[in-house]
């Protein structure tokens, strides 16, 4: 579970780091590590680049700590630095991607009709003990267009609120909601038919039936 931000602790920590207690930076950045890494993984698409960019991000945060004004949450500020680091790398390799990460408009037409089902048996969290289920979920998220993947990652996986997600990604709160809705619809359509096999079997009333 992601650690909830604690603004008082962060402000105190930053003050003391800037006053010379530099070791405290380890504690300050700890709760942001996961979000930094997964945001960069969603932008860059591979673990090695994401880890390298995550390290660069954290160094930049350390070196620019006195620029943090407390106008947003610390994690939001950190993630906007991570996002810039990720976008900078994408531009450098001149990766022409099909989907622009800077796209401001959400006018794209697409089919967000869900998979139509007539009943649903819930897949319990215990089913995640089966590796194939985790792989299936990761593959479905990886296959989302990047602008949707980023939002799912921050909202549903890192459990950030709409405002913080919007600030970290440099988009409006409305765009966060639209993209999250579409992402979830795409995930439901992709996953629901496959997930059925992971639901617990109904107990048979007659023990001897084949």
């Amino acid at each position, binding site marked *: 579970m992601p650690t909830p931000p604690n603004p008082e602790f962060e402000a105190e920590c930053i003050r003391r780091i800037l006053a010379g207690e530099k070791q405290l930076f*380890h504690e300050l950045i700890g709760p942001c590590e996961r979000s930094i890494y997964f945001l960069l993984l969603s932008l860059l698409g591979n673990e090695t680049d994401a880890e390298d960019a995550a390290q660069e991000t954290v*160094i930049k945060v350390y*070196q620019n700590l006195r620029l943090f004004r407390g106008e947003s949450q610390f994690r939001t500020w950190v993630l906007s630095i991570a996002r810039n680091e990720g976008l900078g790398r994408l531009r450098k390799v001149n990766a022409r991607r099909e989907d622009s990460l800077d796209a401001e408009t959400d006018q794209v037409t697409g089919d967000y009709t*869900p998979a139509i089902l007539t009943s649903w048996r819930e897949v319990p969290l215990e089913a*995640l003990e089966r590796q194939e289920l985790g792989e299936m979920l990761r593959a479905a998220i990886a296959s989302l267009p990047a602008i949707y993947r980023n939002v799912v990652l921050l909202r549903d996986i890192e459990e950030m609120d709409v405002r913080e997600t919007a600030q970290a990604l440099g988009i409006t709160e409305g765009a966060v*909601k639209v993209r999250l*809705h579409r992402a979830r619809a795409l995930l439901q359509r992709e996953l629901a038919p496959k*997930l059925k096999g992971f639901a617990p079997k109904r107990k048979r009333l007659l023990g001897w039936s084949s």
Partner: protein
Amino acid sequence: MRIDCKHVWEYISAYIDGEVDAELRAHIDKHLETCEICSAVLDSTRNVVVLVADDRVFELPAGFSKRLHERIEDVIQSDSA
């Protein structure tokens, strides 16, 4: 106001996040009582959201945190030198 299935699908994400107003929520709830398709779509979407949020789905690479903090320590040390 009667709402149809497509209308419900448009609000599923906001419904899950508790972001629809009371009036719309009441209309959606009423629709869900009699529409097994929308109920199944809502339940499966909610199930997908819960599953992807589990920490076991997205784990940091082994040793990520250790390597990160070693790098930080290097920078702090050279900063203090």
